[in-house]
């Protein structure tokens, strides 16, 4: 026993001494796993084309990242899967019928303009996938708002996608025909995702499963999704646009991209506040803007723009809720100021 310490190797290293195995790649892999239920549902609901669109989108996102960094002779980073997640998310917030090449264009905007031009991963001030979607809406408005109702010609194995039967999305109906909406779709339809809409946003259930997985794995914290969805729920409960406040509230939170946005987009590390308090403020702001755009704006859906707008305020929020330095006394600090 006594001589053992001589065999002990001492390694001198600077702190931190205990490291977790987490890295960007493992976090992004968790996000991809969490998106799987929603992707599976979109394939079940809209046909095989949804999967192909997702594949094209992921491949083009990775390609743009590779090409940009190759041309500028920067180290390749696509192995961290962040570009793949951007591509996957972009495919999920677009209609299934969107031509593949438009997805490629959208990914160009998301990866090259929004992410790489600002310095790559961690430096972009907006969520790349949502910015890509906003650019696509500005470019190809009619293709980006052509929604299909799969119930009209359901064919899960069809490669071409379902025959296009355009239909109003629940959110568009909510704006001007809430009674018609409640006749067409039940709350259960909305929750499960038996409605029309973007590829990955229709099923609240599948997104909740993925979101809970992310919270359970501690990839995201609960503050943003809860405050975001909570704000939307509270506001729509207080100011319903129909007879029943509760059903209006349920349609509001299960409809559109709210679940997808709250769990997967607003929680993006790069573009959300650092502190828990800041995240709560961020979520409430997203919720307020979403309700305002949905109710008073010209678009039926406001999740995309509300998150993008709040992305731009993150630095102010971060500055406002800067945590107290350990040991620093507030009174002393103020005295020092004077």
């Amino acid at each position, binding site marked *: 026993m006594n001589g053992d310490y001589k065999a002990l190797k001492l390694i001198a290293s600077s702190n931190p001494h205990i490291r977790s195995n987490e890295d960007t790649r493992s976090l992004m892999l968790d996000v991809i796993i969490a998106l799987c239920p929603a992707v599976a549902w979109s394939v079940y609901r809209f046909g095989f084309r949804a999967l192909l669109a997702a594949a094209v989108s992921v491949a083009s996102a990775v390609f743009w990242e590779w090409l940009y960094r190759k041309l500028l002779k920067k180290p390749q980073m696509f192995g961290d899967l962040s570009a793949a997640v951007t591509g996957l998310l972009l495919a999920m917030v677009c209609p299934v019928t969107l031509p593949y090449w438009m997805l490629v264009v959208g990914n160009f905007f998301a990866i090259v303009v929004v992410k790489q031009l600002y310095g790559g991963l961690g430096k972009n001030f907006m969520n790349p996938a949502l910015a890509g979607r906003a*650019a696509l809406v*500005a470019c*190809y*408005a009619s*293709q980006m708002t052509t929604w299909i109702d799969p119930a009209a010609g359901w064919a899960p194995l069809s490669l071409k996608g379902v025959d296009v039967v355009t239909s109003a999305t629940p959110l568009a109906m909510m704006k001007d025909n809430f009674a018609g909406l409640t006749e067409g779709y039940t709350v259960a339809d909305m929750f499960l995702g038996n409605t029309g809409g973007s590829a990955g946003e229709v099923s609240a259930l599948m997104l909740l499963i993925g979101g809970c997985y992310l919270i359970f794995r501690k990839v995201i914290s609960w503050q943003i999704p809860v405050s975001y969805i909570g704000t939307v729920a509270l506001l729509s409960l207080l100011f319903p646009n129909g007879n029943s406040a509760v059903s209006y509230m349920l349609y509001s939170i299960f409809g559109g991209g709210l679940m997808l946005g709250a769990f997967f987009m607003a929680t993006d590390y790069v573009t959300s506040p650092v502190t828990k308090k800041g995240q709560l403020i961020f979520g409430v702001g997203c919720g307020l803007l979403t309700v305002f755009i949905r109710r008073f704006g010209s678009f039926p859906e406001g999740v995309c723009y509300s998150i993008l707008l709040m992305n731009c305020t993150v630095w102010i929020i971060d500055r406002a809720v800067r945590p107290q330095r350990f040991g620093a006394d507030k009174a002393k600090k103020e005295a020092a100021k004077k």
Partner: protein
Amino acid sequence: MNFGKQLKEGLITNNPVTVQLLGMCSTMAITTSITNGIGMGVSVMIILTLANIFIALLRKVIPDEVRIACFIVVIAGFVTMVDLSLQAFFPAIAKSLGVFIPLIVVNCIILGRAEAFASKNSVAASAVDGITQGLGYTAVLLVLCFVRELLGAGKLLGVQVMPSSYVPAGILVLPVGGFLCLGALIAAMQWALNKSKEKAAKAEGKEAAE
């Protein structure tokens, strides 16, 4: 006076838009079609040349303290002339350029050249400066117009050139498309200029070594 050198400066090394970063507002606003670009470019070139000539003529008379106001008066006179002539002879262009022709009065390129060049140089050199800087401005406008009209509307000079299956990228004819295209052009220009500077520096280094 060196026409070739001034031409090179106006078009490339000291281009008013991509290097001096002047006149960006009108550049982004009107470059949605080539007709607009030609109309705006030629108008600015005429006004810039005439204003340069007159300011160079008056440069010894104008008191230093009120020179900006005097420059503006001279420029505004020529802008009014061009504006009225456009309305008389090219009503279509005048209509599509709208307020941006009167706004040439406050276009920084013209005031900038008056301040930086015409008030210090001879009449002939100032006239050449007006023409070359105007050409540089027009060249940038035409490049941006070409990209934005072709991809944003599928047309060139108002004629459909892209196949009918092409879906125009509407974002490019919106103001945000102007920002994007201009940013990309300035970046490309700076890259090319730095590249040629590096080359020149290397060549010089070699010569010095030899």
